[in-house]
C-alpha cells in the first residue's frame, strides 16, 4: 500500500537527493542581490571620496553597515553556490572535487565571520 503522495515521491528524488534546495537558494540569493547590488554600486559611485576615512564614516551609520553586511554575505553565499556547480561540472577526480568543495565551504564561513567582525567594529 502506498501512503506517500505523488508529490512526496517526486520531491527529493534524483541522485543527490537535495539538488532543488541548492537551485532554489541560488535563485533566492540572486533576487535579493538585485536591489542590494544596485544600492552598493549607486552608493559607491555617488560618494565624494572612497578614501578609508570616508568609507569608515559611511559604515559607521547602522543602515549602510546593515545593508553592507546583507550584501556581502549574500554575495559570498551566492558565490559559494556558483563555485560548487563549477567544481561539480568540471572537476572529475572525486578526492579533488571533495577537497575543493570543502575548502570553499570553509572559506565561505570564514568570510561571513570576517564580514560580521569588521562591520561590528566599524558601526560601533
Amino acid at each position, binding site marked *: 500500500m502506498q501512503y506517500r503522495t505523488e508529490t512526496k515521491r517526486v520531491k527529493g528524488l534524483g541522485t543527490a537527493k537535495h539538488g532543488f534546495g541548492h537551485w532554489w537558494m541560488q535563485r533566492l540569493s540572486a533576487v535579493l542581490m538585485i536591489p542590494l547590488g544596485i544600492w552598493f554600486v549607486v552608493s559607491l559611485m555617488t560618494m565624494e571620496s572612497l578614501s578609508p576615512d570616508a568609507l569608515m564614516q559611511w559604515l559607521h551609520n547602522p543602515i549602510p553597515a546593515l545593508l553592507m553586511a546583507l550584501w556581502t554575505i549574500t554575495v*559570498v553565499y551566492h558565490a559559494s553556490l556558483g563555485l560548487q556547480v563549477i567544481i561539480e561540472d568540471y572537476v572529475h577526480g572525486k578526492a579533488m572535487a571533495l577537497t575543493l568543495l570543502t575548502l570553499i565551504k570553509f572559506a565561505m564561513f570564514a568570510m561571513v565571520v570576517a564580514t560580521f567582525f569588521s562591520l561590528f567594529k566599524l558601526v560601533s
Partner: protein
Amino acid sequence: MNTSNRPLSPHIQVYKMPLSAKLSIFHRLTGLGLSFGAVVLVFWLFSLAYLSETAVALHAFFSSGFGKVILIAFTFAFFYHFCNGIRHLFWDVGKGFELEQVNRSGVIVIIVALVLTAITWVVGG
C-alpha cells in the same frame, strides 16, 4: 564494434557556437571572476576595520591607472552577470524561451551591461 572514432556532435573544433552558448560560458566566467571580487570585498571591509595601513594601500592601488582598469573590468563583469542573471530568472519562470527572444535578450544584456558600466564610471569615476 569500435565506436571511439565516431565524430562528436557538435564537433567542437568546427562548431560555431550560437550567441546564447557564448553568453552562457561568459556568465560562468564572470561568476568565477566575481567570486574573487567577493574575497576582495571582504578583505576591503576587514582592512577598514582592522588594518588601516592596508586600507590606505588598497585605496592607493585602486586609484591608480592599473587599479582602475581592474575595477572597470569588475564593474562590467558585475553588470553582465547581473543582467544575464535576470535573463536567467525570466527563463526560470518560463518566459522568453523562443529562439528569437533568446537571441534578442542576449544582445540586450550585452548592450545594457556596457551602458551601465559606462554610466557608473562617467558619473562616479
